[in-house]
């Protein structure tokens, strides 16, 4: 078959930010259209559904004028762990370290925080039982726990070159099983009435709330984003991280140490995810129980990726995805549709963006084939 035309993929010179945003927007629209098709197949009205989701996530004008911001606070509540896991994944991915283990790091962060809250009062009776002492302690414990969990695959990669995708993934499940063991068995609430979970943590260990369930964790999340921005944009260390991610060979040639940075970055990355766990325990559930993680770690990867690893983008995307999830929960009640609609939409958006990604990195050129030349790799003499 003699085709007179052929396609050639050319690498684009310099990714344009505008193009990236454009692709993101069109992908979202495309995903919404595809979702609409799915809904129509199952006799649901797409417009009503989307409207209900939006209102579920943000509330209605009536509610706003009433001073009722419950929906928005719920959305923000869900956004908090997503921001943090997104940031966690972002900083790791910047350095080409595929941290798929944010899930496990989060869980262990929550475990550590709960552990401090539940056991320190009896272990260290001298400690004043107020928030000023306990919250920072819990925060520190969660950072440490998450960091250690993130360090293990980092060390394996830095010194033994073990593939981090698999190790971080496996460690997730080990962490989750461990935490299940804890709240089901060892830390089981003696007054639990058979309901699986740990004892409730004391008031002093709970994060104060603003409105609805929105707790101080939001400040921590935003502060973390600011911190990450400062590191990446303003600090020497951030420069080194970016350099490694863009060209590891050049980084090495410039004297930047790869091994040391893998370890440092994963400490931060694991720590951030750990904080997310602490915030969930201390701000929302107030105990260790099933559902601490709810895929925050994996969704964090989506957040990070859609946000192009940018700290501010993480806040924005996390909020939007949280809105999607909360909206999805709501339509279960208001429209009798399964909450999984939100997950389907999320997945579809992601796929569309993935497909559109290519257009930001490559340009397609149509070539006229006068003579078909097969250009194959040229060998260097003496190379």
């Amino acid at each position: 078959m003699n085709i007179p035309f052929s396609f050639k993929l050319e690498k684009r010179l310099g990714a344009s930010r505008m193009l990236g945003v454009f692709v993101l927007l069109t992908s979202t629209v495309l995903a919404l259209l595809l979702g609409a098709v799915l809904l129509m197949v199952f006799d649901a009205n797409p417009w009503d559904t989307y409207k209900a989701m939006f209102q579920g996530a943000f509330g209605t004008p009536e509610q706003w004028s009433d001073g009722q911001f419950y929906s928005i606070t719920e959305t923000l509540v869900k956004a908090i762990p997503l921001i943090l896991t997104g940031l966690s994944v972002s900083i790791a991915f910047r350095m080409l370290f595929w941290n798929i283990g944010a899930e496990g790091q989060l869980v262990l962060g929550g475990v550590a925080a709960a552990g401090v809250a539940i056991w320190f009062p009896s272990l260290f009776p001298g400690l004043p039982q107020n928030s000023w002492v306990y919250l920072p302690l819990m925060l520190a414990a969660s950072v440490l726990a998450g960091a250690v969990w993130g360090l293990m695959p980092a060390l394996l990669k830095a010194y033994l070159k073990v593939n981090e995708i698999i190790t971080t993934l496996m460690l997730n499940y080990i962490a989750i099983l461990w935490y299940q063991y804890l709240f089901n068995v060892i830390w089981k609430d003696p007054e639990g009435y058979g309901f699986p979970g740990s004892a409730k943590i004391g008031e002093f260990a709970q994060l104060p709330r603003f409105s609805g369930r929105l707790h101080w964790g939001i400040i921590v999340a935003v502060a973390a984003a600011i911190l990450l921005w400062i590191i990446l944009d303003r600090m020497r260390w951030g420069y080194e991280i970016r350099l490694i991610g863009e060209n590891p060979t050049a980084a090495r040639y410039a004297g930047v140490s790869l091994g040391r940075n893998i370890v440092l970055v994963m400490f931060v990355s694991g720590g951030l995810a750990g904080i997310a766990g602490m915030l969930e325990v201390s701000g929302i559930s107030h105990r260790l129980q099933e559902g601490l993680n709810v895929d925050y770690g994996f969704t964090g990867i989506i957040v990070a990726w859609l946000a192009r690893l940018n700290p501010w983008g993480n806040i924005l995307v996390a909020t939007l995805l949280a809105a999607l999830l909360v909206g999805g929960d709501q339509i279960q009640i208001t429209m009798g549709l399964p909450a999984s609609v939100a997950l389907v939409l999320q997945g579809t958006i992601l796929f569309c963006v993935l497909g559109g990604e290519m257009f930001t990195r490559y340009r397609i050129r149509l070539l006229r084939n006068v003579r078909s030349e097969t250009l194959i790799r040229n060998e260097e003499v003496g190379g």
Partner: protein
Amino acid sequence: MEIGLVASILSIAIAAGTSLVFATVGEIVTERAGILNLGVEGMMIMGAVTGFAAAFHTESVAIGVIIAMLVGGAMALVHAFLTITMLADQVVSGLALTLLGSGLASFLGQRLGPEGMPLVGQIGPRFEKIALPFLSEIPLVGPSVFHRDLLSYLMYFFVPVAWYFVYKTRPGLHLRAIGDSPQTADAMGVNVFALRYVYTVVGGMLVGLGGAHLSLSYTPGWTENITGGRGWIVIALVIFATWNPVRAVLGALVFGGVNAIQFRLQAAGTTISASLLNMLPYILTIVVLVLITWAEAFRKRVGAPTALGLPYMREERT
């Protein structure tokens, strides 16, 4: 340990392992071609729900299986398109597939029952156990190994065939080549792109089959989260089996057996928690991976397809 205990552990291990084996061999085939597909969990659960729904409405397990395989293959096709042609990142694409698959399966599970009702709790056709004459009389293992359903028997047959295909046939040689050294394979005239598509889709179909086994035999029926993270175990199993179909059976039996041992132990009233035992497969996988990576010679003899996870693009002289 009494014979009865061994037999019953073996029985549960095989029952639990069948779906794992199909899915693992599927992912082995995909990874051997050089493509990492982390969407196993999504494809498997979609296979389970669509397989059961199809079987339920048509009263035929055969149709259920076929549908499940087609769905798995279709999902894998999306992944293949994104990663091979659109050069998207394989990790993100696979995770997206899992996310979409899980969500869609949950959604469909709510809507594909009789007259749009949920599928949960519905009783549908299932694969019945068939005792092989004479073989099932063998003491000790007879009842466990030879008194199973059709899919398990298919598995017994399928695994040696898969092994033979990969190691002893010409297309198998090409499969290994495109995963180990796509440049070389391309230079020798093997169509890397097309074959990667084919094997990714085939892998997806097998994963879908694994999912179908869950809803049409093991559980049976449909429940939310029927896969329970098995998809991730499959990914671990592929490494544990060092990309060898026969070893996959061993791994699946071990992982499946862990489940069984845990049941037994709980029933016997021991205090070792199920959770701790369940960690074992994951820990073992990390250990195996470290060993593989660390011993250079070990890796070369047994190891990962060298070009796994890397997109292949013909370089051009600019």
